[in-house]
Structure formats: C-alpha cells, structure tokens
C-alpha cells in the first residue's frame, strides 16, 4: 500500500511538472494582458513539433536535449512578438470578448498551419528521453527524463519566474502593469513594451512546455487542443495571473489525476474540473487570487 501511494505520488509529480510548464505561460499572459490566449495550445504544439524536428536533426542524444531549448526559444522569439504586435496590439482598446475571439481565430488558423507544415502522421522523437535513461524506484522502471528532469525544470522555471518578477526591475515593471496598468503608466512605465515582453515570455513558455513534452509523446493534429482546456482549468483554479498558484494547482491536478488512475480510474477525466469547482466554491477568486475591490 505504501509503495502504491509512493508510486501514485511520483506519477502525479511528473504529470504536474508537464502541466505546470504549459499553464504557467498562460497564467502570465492572462495576468498582464488580461487576455485568455486560446492559441496558447497552438504555440505549445508548434513548439513541440519544432523541437521534434530539431532534435531529429541534432544527431546525438545529448545535442537533442539542447535542441529542445533552442526550438522553444526560436518559437517564442518569432511567434510572440509577431502575434502581439501584429494582432493583439490592434485591439487592446476593444472589449475582452473580442480579444478572446481573436486568439480563438488564431487557434483555428494555426491548427491548419501545423497540419500543412508537419502533416498528419504522428511525429515522435524520443532521443532526449533515451539520452537520460531509466531510473528504478521500488522495482518500477521510470524514465529519468520524466521523473527527474521535467519536475526539476519545472521547479527551476518556477523559481526563476518568481525571482525575475519580484527581484528584477523589469519583473517589477511587469507586476506593476499586471496590478494596475493606469497607475503603472502614471509612473512612467511603457505598458506597450511590457505587454510585448510578457506575451513573448508567455509564448516562449508555451513553446518550452511543448518542446519538453515532445520527447515523451506522439505529436498528432489536435495535440494543442487537448492541452489547452486543461490549462484553462489550471489558470482559473489558481487565481488570476498567479504563478505560484499555477504551480500549486498543477500539483493538485497532477496528484488528483494519478490517485484517480490508481484508486478510481473512472474519475480521471473529471478530476481537474471537480477540483476547479471545489476550489472556486471555497475561494471565489481562485486558490491564490485576492478579492479585488474597485475604487468607487
């Protein structure tokens, strides 16, 4: 029984790490730009496809690990600014619904773009996983990639983001804009630049999430769709723009899911949504969200 619990815990951690990597970028973008980016899943998918392509070219397994990071960086650096400047920046003054729908349109377009570029046959490149080899826990074989590297990177990513946002000038500027755009502008912060920066980081994180997931899974049309809905649930459960909240929620969902697989497999699919409803009943602004009072 203890072994079973331990295994469920390990599986949950590994899953939570993947989930966090996808959700954190979405949370960041939502926190700063107040836009729920439906195309986040597409960026995830494009990051994953690019990483697979690049990793396949890399030759040696260790180089392929590097290729993952490179692919994410490239996708973030290209897609982020072009989407923000080319599309989003045009409608910041419009209603939120329109901004949401814009990203939905983008999602539909990118779905077909992926198909045209990478085709419909599943793409699979697991050289990075093989490079790290297996780990054995209690007689059970895991891959080091999923059990150690991914959770490790998720923690690094979390710590980095917290440090970046709280301790650096740029990060504080992002937080200031996220908190109150008008007040931030009043003290001389160029919110347009912050938007660009935050969206680019968010896009990069989406691509990174995809790139890191790529070696563990087959990429097929629709892979982004599957990921994005879950990330939505994480973002809402966490509270608006809460990085630590996203981590905590990802952990909750990851553990909830793996315990479900062990003890009540039929519940697996609904676990994230049940968690979300329960959390929002108890805390209407999300796990880490503070209640906002409007100045009147």
């Amino acid at each position, binding site marked *: 029984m203890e072994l079973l619990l331990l295994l469920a815990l390990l599986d949950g951690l590994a899953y939570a790490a993947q989930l966090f990597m996808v959700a954190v970028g979405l949370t960041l973008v939502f926190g700063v730009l107040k836009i729920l980016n439906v195309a986040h899943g597409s960026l995830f998918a494009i990051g994953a496809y690019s990483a697979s392509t690049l990793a396949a070219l890399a030759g040696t397994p260790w180089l392929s690990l590097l290729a993952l990071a490179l692919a994410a960086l490239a996708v973030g650096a290209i897609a982020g600014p072009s989407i923000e400047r080319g599309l989003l920046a045009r409608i910041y003054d419009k209603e939120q619904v329109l901004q949401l729908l814009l990203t939905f349109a983008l999602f539909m377009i990118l*779905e077909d773009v992926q198909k045209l570029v990478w085709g419909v046959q599943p793409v699979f490149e697991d050289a990075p996983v093989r490079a790290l080899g297996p780990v054995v826990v209690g007689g059970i074989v895991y891959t080091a990639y999923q059990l150690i590297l991914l959770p490790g990177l998720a923690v690094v990513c979390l710590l980095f983001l917290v440090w970046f946002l709280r301790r650096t000038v740029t990060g504080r500027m992002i937080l200031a804009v996220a908190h109150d755009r008008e007040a931030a502008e009043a003290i001389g912060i160029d919110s347009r630049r912050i938007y660009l920066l935050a969206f680019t980081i968010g896009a990069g994180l989406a691509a990174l999430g995809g790139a890191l997931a790529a070696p563990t899974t087959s990429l097929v049309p629709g892979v982004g769709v599957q990921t994005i809905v879950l990330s939505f649930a994480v973002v809402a459960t966490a509270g608006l723009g809460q990085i630590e909240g996203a981590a905590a929620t990802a952990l909750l969902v990851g553990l909830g899911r793996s315990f479900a697989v062990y003890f009540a497999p039929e519940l697996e699919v609904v676990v994230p949504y049940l968690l979300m409803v329960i959390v929002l009943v108890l805390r209407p602004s999300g796990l880490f969200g503070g209640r906002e009072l409007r100045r009147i």
Partner: protein
Amino acid sequence: MPLRLAFAVGFLALALLAALQPWLRFVLTLALATGLAVLGIMMLLRAGQVSFGHALYVAVGAYTIAFARPQLDDVLLLLAAAVLAAVVAGILVGLFVSRYRDIFFGMLNLAFSMVVYSLLEKLYWLTRGTDGIRVARPRLFGVALEGARYEWALFALALVCVAIAAALVARYLRAPAGEALSALKTRETRLEFAGVSARRVLFQAYVVSAGLAGLGGGITALATLHVTPLLVYWTHSGELVFVAILGGTANVLGPFLGAVVFELVRVHAAAAFPDAWQMILGLVLLGIVLLAARGLVGLLEELGRWWGRRV
C-alpha cells in the same frame, strides 16, 4: 419597424435558398438552431460574460430528445421536453455560476460542459459513448412525414421558433432586467447600489439562454436524428461565441445572421478546401474582430448609413 422587416426579408431569402438548393434546407435548419443558441450567448455577452460551455445546453436539449424519443412521438412535445430539461440544467448550473464573472464565469461553464462531455463518453451503457444515439423520426401533429416533407416541416418549425424567440428576447432586452445586462457589464456595483441583485439579473438571462440553447439543440437533434457527445465539446461552445461575435450583439437579428453566414462559409470552405476549411473560418473571424468588431449587424448598419448619405 426595420428589425421586423429585416427578419421578414431574411426569412424569405432563407426559404428561397432552401427551395433552390434542397441540401441547404438541412444546413439552414441547423443554422437556425445554432442561431437560437447564439441568441442566448448574445444575452450573456451583453452582460460582458462569455460562456465557454454553452454547448452543454445544446447537448442537454439534443440528448433529451434522444432519450425521450422512445416514449414520445411528437415533434412539439419533444421540443418542449428539450427546452424544459435545458432550463432545469440552466437553473442548477446558473445558481452556481451566476456568482462568478469574467474568466471564472467562462471557465466554470467550460468545466461543467467538459464534465458532461466526459460523462456522455463514459456512461457508455446509457449513451452509447461517441457512437451516439439514433433518434427515430417523430411525427408532427400525429402525421408521419418522410424525407423532404419532414425537412420542410422542420425548417418551417425552426423559422417559427426563431420568430417567436427573437420577438420575445427583443422585448426582454428592452425591459429593465434586459437593459440591466449591459448595465451589469459597465457598472455592476451601481446596480447593487440601486438595490438590484446583479446576480439575479445574470441568472435570469442565463436560464433563458440555457432554454434557447436547449431549443436549438432539440431542433438540431430532430434534424440530424443522431446525437453524439461532440455536441458538447468545448470547440463547439467556442463556435457559438464565434457566431455571436460574427453576427454582432446590437440586436436579435445578429445571432441568426451570424449563424447562417457561418454555416454557409463553412460549407463552402469545406467544399473548396477540404484540408484547410478551419483556417478559412479563422481568417473570417480574424477579419471580423479586427475590421468589423460590431459584427455583421454593425456592418449592415454602416452600410445603411452610407446608403442614406448617398441618396
């Protein structure tokens, strides 16, 4: 009343289209059904709230018909059952979600719809999972209709439902509780300081919107005679919001205009580019959002104004 005229012209145009192109009868019936669901979405959009899960009520309506069909053999009774079930579901969920705003409102709706989606897939013994349930073609006023007659009857019925729903919703939107929807969007606190429960304003509209979506789902099920869980998948909910924006929220014509244009674009895009129809739809949506944020109704109004200036 120009809106009534627009509806009359629109109905005539649809009937003509359906007569000239028999296959469009079915597509247009579905478009009208979608329009009914979007009419409900549009009420919520007026309150600034985006439901990313309203396909739930479409599915409740459709599955109610699938489950009730063995006992009921009448189109109108079945539709009534569909609306009733959707209203009940709307009350249950609405009591909960009407407390929430913006992303929480949107995501909770999404969550409920996704839970129902997985239940429809999971409860295989009850729902036949993704295979879906066949609906035997019911009678209308005791008359068994075949093929094209049934299609015409359903098309006409959809038009009648649209006319009634549009008229009632238009009046509702002019009544205080309807006008309060956009008041809720712009200054919810002020509503509360006037002694009005913003939650009740939203709840009431939510239940109406659920009923409308249920009616739309019912008509859909009666037209396709086969219901599957895909009806409630979140992309379908997204489509409903898409159509609402495409049509515009200025008046009750928008949802139907949007739905008809959406279906026609989709059908023609799919015919011309079977591999990239989704991209075409995405580009249309992009164009609307960037260039005509008030939707087709807004475009029509501007066209009318331009015409007025020229003459």
